[in-house]
């Protein structure tokens, strides 16, 4: 997994609550059997004016000038600022894949949907939950004429801008370590293979009906 220690970059404000996974990456792109190729279709329905299909040459599609992703100020942004319940909807991991491949390394929001939150960590995308007030301040700063440069530091668990903004965030220690070190979670769990085997044997004995198969 891609390591994450700290990220300094431009902030793109996406001023909507309940942004769902169908908006992050529409279903027609889920037909792929690969992990890559989703970046050009991030927020496809909002970003382009014409409907998109897999296999199109996306460079020739009409861009929606009113969508924030196409705003010249935010080109090259690496931090996505969002509102409540970001990533609600399906379990598709294509959502964090698309966000990462587009170039974001961090999503900041007052709250996230559980599965999206979880999926982000598995891919080196850091979801940061900040208090509503702090998010509000960031929206004001990021929407100004000059784009906001922010540093998100996972080691110190802080978010800071030269404009005087600073905040700290909470993160689960296991996830933090995995991100900081770019650990392979499966490899880690397999270190506990003996414990899994022992549990399985006892489980099979106490509830043998869970091991029937037609």
């Amino acid at each position, binding site marked *: 997994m891609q390591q994450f220690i700290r990220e300094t970059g431009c902030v793109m404000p996406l001023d909507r609550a309940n942004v769902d996974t*169908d908006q992050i990456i529409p279903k027609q792109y889920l037909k792929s059997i690969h992990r890559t190729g989703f970046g050009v279709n991030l927020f496809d329905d909002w970003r382009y004016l014409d409907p998109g299909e897999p296999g199109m040459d996306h460079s020739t599609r009409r861009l929606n000038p009113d969508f924030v992703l196409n705003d010249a100020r935010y080109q090259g942004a690496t931090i996505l600022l969002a509102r409540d*319940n970001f990533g*609600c909807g399906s379990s598709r991991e294509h959502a964090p894949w698309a966000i990462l491949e587009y170039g974001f390394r961090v999503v900041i929001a007052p709250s996230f949907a559980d*599965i999206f939150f979880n*999926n982000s960590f598995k891919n080196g995308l850091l979801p940061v939950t900040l208090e509503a007030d702090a998010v509000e301040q960031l929206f004001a700063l990021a929407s100004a004429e000059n784009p906001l440069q922010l540093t998100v530091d996972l080691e110190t668990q802080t978010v800071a801008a030269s404009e005087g903004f600073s905040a700290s965030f909470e993160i*689960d220690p296991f996830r933090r370590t995995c991100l900081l070190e770019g650990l392979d979670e499966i490899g880690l769990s397999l270190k506990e293979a003996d414990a899994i085997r022992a549990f399985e044997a006892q*489980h099979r004995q106490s*509830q043998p009906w*869970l091991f029937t198969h037609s």
Partner: protein
Amino acid sequence: MSGRTLYDKLWDSHLVTQRDDGSALIYIDRQLLHEVTSPQAFEGLALAGRRPWRLDANLATVDHNVPTENQAAGVEAIADPVSRLQVQTLDSNCDAFGITQFKMADPRAGIVHVIGPEQGATLPGMTIVCGDSHTATHGAFGALAHGIGTSEVEHVLATQCLVAKKMRNMRVTVSGPLGFGVTAKDVILAIIGQIGTAGGTGCAIEFAGEGIASLSMEGRMTVCNMAIEAGARVGLVGVDEKTIEYVKGRPFAPTGDLFDAAADSWRTLVSDADARFDHEVTLDGTLIEPQVSWGTNPEMVTGVHGQVPDPTQIDDPLKRGAVERALKYMGLTGGQSIDSIRLDRVFIGSCTNSRIEDLRDAAQVVDGKRVADSVKQAMVVPGSGLVKAQAEAEGLDQIFLEAGFEWRDPGCSMCLAMNADRLGPGEHCASTSNRNFEGRQGTGGRTHLVSPTMAAAAAVAGHFVDVREWL
């Protein structure tokens, strides 16, 4: 010490190791697989030279991409080469690794959340995962069932465990009895309307009370299915005799003495009377009316006699903005009555409402009537090949066909429009599915979430009506 909730019991009985940092490894009894969220997991497994930990814990089916016509022809029936490759990839992965799969044209194939319970592959007391958020459905059996991402699918394949953190306990009690003609779908939509799409975030929601206990197993599945639309990865209903009866005799279920032993154990799968919940919500089930969603997320819902909200009456600027945006997308006017919304298409199907009881209920409403001329298309997509066969044995297909509905082969179909079944821009659809997000059923399409009986009545009337007046 206070008692344990059902969720606590399921968690405790699957805990392999509790790590110091608060995370835990929990053992997974069943993994369900489908074509969309598994290819990258199998690829990861193969690249790392790993094998599945326990083959017989897995069961695979194809559902999201499959066409709903001419399935008997197998993968050749899939016109879109990208979709076809994804289905073929699941076939070859299951063959290569030795995983049991219901391929296209196998009558046991269908929507993953329909076939699990139908086969008895979903059992009370299990932990169940699937790379699909509606895995919450299986919680209707007193099983701990979550949707997971593709990395986790790979993790479960490789280790038979999931790295998890305990959720909080929430209980939603629906007092009863439910009113005449009010269905499980109305109950869950009313719950989401009350607690919101993030109301259950971080929680396992147990649904309880007379309004839930009175539902059939299929109704309980409909309720748990949409726990995720309330923000909760897990929905649960305690085990009772209905649960045990439903499981009995199904292909994957235990038999004989083993079944009796299992049933005794399953009867303990209820929250203790003195269990404490972190959050409690109560709804008066007697007041729930048939529901219709008007907006672009499932909390934007109201009773059939209600109106679309008027943004000028909303003070909170964020909420007002969200309502304005939703109304614009939906092509509706603030204050408009729900029964004035005219429909272009009607879709009866999806893992929320495509089981045999759903089809029976809908057929009863349309029997002897005709789909309105103004409705371009009304379709019924059974949840599995076996549901389809059962419905045909009961003559339901003929009732639908005579009324002007299309009768299709099983799959996810217009629930997410990954296959050819979809809405055109601006079209309004009465849909028995679970998500009314922008573009969900086709770019620019406008989804109204309703129960099967409400969808059936809307097809006939051409606009929403209170189906209770037709029953």
